[in-house]
């Protein structure tokens, strides 16, 4: 009886932690993979997979979090996949009209950016002077 009760309480406690635990969006491993990438840039692959998973999972029920399409698009961009990146920047804009100003700048940059498929380090500034 005690064990059962304890188990129930634990489940409820987990559910309640932080007062409201219902998630509006699918976040997958977002935090962990982004942090891992900051600590070790060679973990770009893991971050890419993690973002792709969030999108795949979120798209099944319209729960892709704001910003995720754009984060994924940017990773594609620095990996040299410019065409693909453009379509994801556009997806972000379509899903979240608030992002229009930034997404239009990103699309322009991805379209006009350096033609050669280069690595992250030799890329031109992704901002393309956005903040100048």
């Amino acid at each position: 009886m005690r064990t059962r009760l304890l188990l129930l309480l634990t489940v409820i406690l987990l559910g309640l932690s932080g007062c409201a635990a219902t998630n509006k969006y699918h976040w997958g491993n977002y935090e962990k993979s982004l942090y891992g990438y900051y600590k070790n840039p060679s973990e770009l692959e893991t971050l890419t997979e993690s973002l792709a998973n969030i999108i795949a999972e979120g798209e099944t029920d319209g729960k892709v979090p704001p910003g995720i399409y754009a984060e994924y698009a940017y990773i594609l961009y620095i990996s040299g996949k410019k065409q693909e990146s453009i379509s994801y920047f556009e997806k972000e804009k379509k899903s979240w009209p608030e992002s229009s100003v930034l997404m239009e700048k990103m699309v322009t940059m991805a379209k006009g950016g350096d033609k050669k498929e280069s690595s992250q380090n030799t890329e031109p500034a992704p901002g393309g002077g956005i903040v100048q």
Partner: protein
Amino acid sequence: MTSRKKTPFTVAMFVFSLAAGCSTTSPPKDYTKFRELDPKAILVVPVVNRSVDVNVPDYFLTTISRPVAERGYYVFPVNLVKQILQDDGLADADMVHASNPIRLAELFGADAVLYISIERWDAQYLVLSTQITVKFKYILKCGKTGETIWESSETMIYSPQQSGGGGLGGLVAMAITAAVAKAVPNYIPLSQQANKNGVTKPHSGLPAGPYLDTYGKDKDMF
């Protein structure tokens, strides 16, 4: 199976006590300006670090999108924003925090800019556990007027659960692991909790944003 009968009541009591614990309030904030300017899209800029731990800003930056988005706001992609700022010569968070919020908001198309600073992050190594005291501050500035429309400051004390038995044996084991693998403690749960508290607590957090059903209907709480 008979033992089940008793649980719902006990559980209900427990839930109530928990819910009560959640709503311990600090003095109510004035949300007049926030409501008036009604931000919908929030730009989070890199975190300023006033602690000695160099990893802390990344912990806070990677864990801020979820709570703010879950509050019903559009949150600009934090990594993309960070890279853009960096590539445009604003790599230093202090510099970004000192720059003009109206200009920043305009460049990204944001309604408001969220500035986070870590005021304190002290790890205290006790005999059987580590205790961390974190003090962090949020300031949200309006992208049109540049004025502060919301601010919040919180101090949190956290003792990470040490898996692996604990006790002296566990401690020794941990010390060995740390020495061998240079294991870096995982502070993602801590920063997640800190950001969640800072953003969602009634009377001090952010009111529900436009993507929540409770948008505009929570004036008794914010």
